[in-house]
């Protein structure tokens, strides 16, 4: 078990990394939906597993896209789109007239959302790879529609043997006007990867 402790300046550095990554993800989304997208200020926090529910916000159900980096920087990422946003976003992506009474995602909606998540996260990872000079190759995306805790437990389980806390890079992206997409991006590096990131940033001591 590796105990990860972050100093304030290390946290700031990671926050800047998250900032850049999320900006790229938001740009990718903006190009796909042809709308201006705003992003929130990323939060970088070390959270004990048992408290993770407190950090997920009030979302009941989410469309979740999971991606894993296996090579030099083992990490897990999850993009969570709130239920209403997922319905609205799917309609835009597929080119349907927005249906406000929509009650479920079709298979086509799900694959469109998975593709958006994939493109956003790949943009995120590309910027991270450039910043850290480490090639990052994400595996294939996977999709689920469920409660945020139930989907995130998949990540906690992956790192559960080596960690008791997750380093969460979390943020919101949304459009400016009436239509809001509530999207949360989570990046959870394995403890060893957190050390590598800090080293590459020259923040390891």
């Amino acid at each position, binding site marked *: 078990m590796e105990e990860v402790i972050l100093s304030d300046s290390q946290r700031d550095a990671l926050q800047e990394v998250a900032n850049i990554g999320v900006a790229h993800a938001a740009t990718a989304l903006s190009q796909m939906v042809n709308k201006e997208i705003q992003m929130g200020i990323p939060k970088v926090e070390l959270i004990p597993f*048992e408290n993770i529910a407190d950090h997920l916000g009030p979302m009941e159900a989410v469309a979740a896209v999971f991606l894993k980096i296996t090579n030099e920087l083992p990490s897990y990422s999850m993009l969570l789109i709130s239920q209403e946003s997922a319905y609205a976003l799917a309609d835009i992506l597929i080119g349907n007239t927005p249906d406000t009474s929509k009650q479920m995602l079709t298979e086509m909606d799900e694959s469109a959302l998975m593709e958006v998540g994939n493109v956003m996260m790949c943009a995120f990872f590309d910027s991270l790879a450039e910043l850290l000079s480490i090639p990052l190759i994400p595996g294939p995306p996977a999709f689920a529609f*469920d409660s945020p805790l139930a*989907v995130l*437990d998949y990540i906690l389980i992956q790192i559960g043997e080596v960690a*008791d806390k997750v380093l969460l890079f979390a943020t919101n992206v949304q459009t400016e006007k009436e239509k809001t997409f509530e999207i949360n991006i989570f990046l959870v590096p394995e403890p060893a990867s957190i050390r590598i990131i800090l080293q590459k940033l020259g923040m390891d001591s």
Partner: protein
Amino acid sequence: MDDTIIIGIGEFVVVSDNRKISTLGLGSCIGTVIFDSVSKISGLSHIMLPTIGVAKKEKIGKFADTAIPAMIDDMVKKGASPVRLRAKIAGGASLFMFTDDQLKIGDRNSEAVRKVLAYYKIPIIAADVGGNRGRTITFNPATGELFIRIVKKGPDESTIKII
């Protein structure tokens, strides 16, 4: 006033005052309820992995092979009768479908929980495991009922079940 006790991932709790016990968003994790219907002493654990292996010892609540024995110990200390203990389990789903998923951690978790309960000769009288849906569960020690709620996916879907 709802005084339900909610536990997080990797935790367990034992109650002897009929307070309801609950845990949210079980994906591949397993919620294990063990109860003694006479003394009403009841426990709930939310494990995430089958075995503790070489991990740090103080987080025993995360693993089936350490959380459940510790919970049973605690229940017996509080006055539960080992022979009257019964179990209900829920969770162990696989929310994400991967073509190369040799892992199936949900299945491995259910197997591990069943093994520990068999070792203690505690019968599993109800189970809702597997599938691809997350579950939020609440146990009522007064009635022995386990409420299971899933996220609504379609307009006509029933989202609550009691086992």
